[in-house]
């Protein structure tokens, strides 16, 4: 019948409030709090209540973009990855920084900081929640 709940955790801050994601027909249609959750106890802040919005936002990127002549233009993954790798290597650890996101998973954030610290040899990594 295509309406299901998926229990998850809010990505926005360190509190880790429980989310009940309402999925209908394969689309994320809403968010509910989880009354039995030990941390959030059925309550959410405004970010948690709207945590589903970014998933279907029309502003989400669908292709890599490279800035050429002052404007962002669609590019292939190969072009984008090659360009980024070359520029990061050329800049060196003291001149690179990375900014990660609350809209990424914990696993993705972990990979980001691992890349920056172990591979690029830099300490300059931060997260949008700190802004």
């Amino acid at each position, binding site marked *: *019948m*295509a*309406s*299901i*709940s998926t*229990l998850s955790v809010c990505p926005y801050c360190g509190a880790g409030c*429980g989310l*009940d994601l*309402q999925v*209908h*027909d394969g689309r994320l*249609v*809403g*968010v*509910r*709090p*989880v*009354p*039995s*959750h030990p941390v959030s106890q*059925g*309550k*959410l*802040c*405004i970010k*948690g*209540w*709207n945590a589903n*919005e970014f998933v279907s936002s029309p502003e989400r990127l669908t292709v890599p973009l490279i800035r050429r002549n002052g404007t962002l233009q669609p590019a292939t993954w190969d072009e984008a990855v090659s360009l980024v790798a070359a520029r990061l290597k050329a800049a060196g650890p003291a001149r690179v920084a990375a900014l990660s996101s609350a809209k990424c998973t914990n696993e993705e954030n972990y990979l980001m900081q691992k890349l920056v610290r172990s591979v690029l040899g830099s300490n300059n990594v931060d997260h949008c929640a700190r802004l």
Partner: protein
Amino acid sequence: MIEELRAHCKELLAAGRVDCIYGLEDCDGACVPRFFTTAAELDRLVLAGKQRLFFTCRPADRNLVALQQAQRPGVRIGIVVRGCDERALLELAKLRQLSLEGVEVIGVACNRSQAEACRCARPYPREPVLGEKVEGVAEDPALTRFRRMRPEERLAFWHHHLGKCIKCYGCRNACPLCFCRECQMERELFVTPGALPPDFPLFHFVHMMHLADRCADCGACEDACPMDIPLRLLKTTMREAVEALFGYRPGSDPAHRSPFADISRGEATHG
């Protein structure tokens, strides 16, 4: 009683009287709304006080039953309702947020301790299929204390409580009867954007006025409030005013529309 409920629902499905059952599921200790389509799934059907069936998914702007009815015209849904769920269901139907066509109401009455846990005055649907109707909580002690306050005390009370508000919109989002696409609680004309606590008392006044003739007394607003604001006191007071002024009780009669739902003169007292 839960076993009886599950058996009853399984029978309805097996007999082909409904295509699915809408109720609450035990999902790893959490209780979530679910459309059950098989007997095996129904073994996880539960009744839980603090979880409600009706709410508006945002930004879809519809409740789950309406989504099902839109996707599958003519679908027959058996809905397991307690008193508060049924009140919400009937009001939502009157307000055209879902259809009662094809809906089989499976009413379950709450017991006394459940009624006390929810401070519920009417812990039963109109015609429960399971459970005996018990008397609800005659009067919430918080309401009694509130009624006795002098105006200055009341104002100070609300100044204190509403001053804690973090404007999460949980009360609005959790409410079964809140479905407006353009919510007046978000309107810049009335509510100053970016200001905390939100404009006193206009922000909460919007909600209590707009729900006065549709509140199902389910307590979802209060349960969703992270700041423990006693929102139910406001809703109950308004509901009682609507009953006293117009003889209207939300959720009690699917045919009786709110005095504010039509343009007739009604029987209001003036002044």
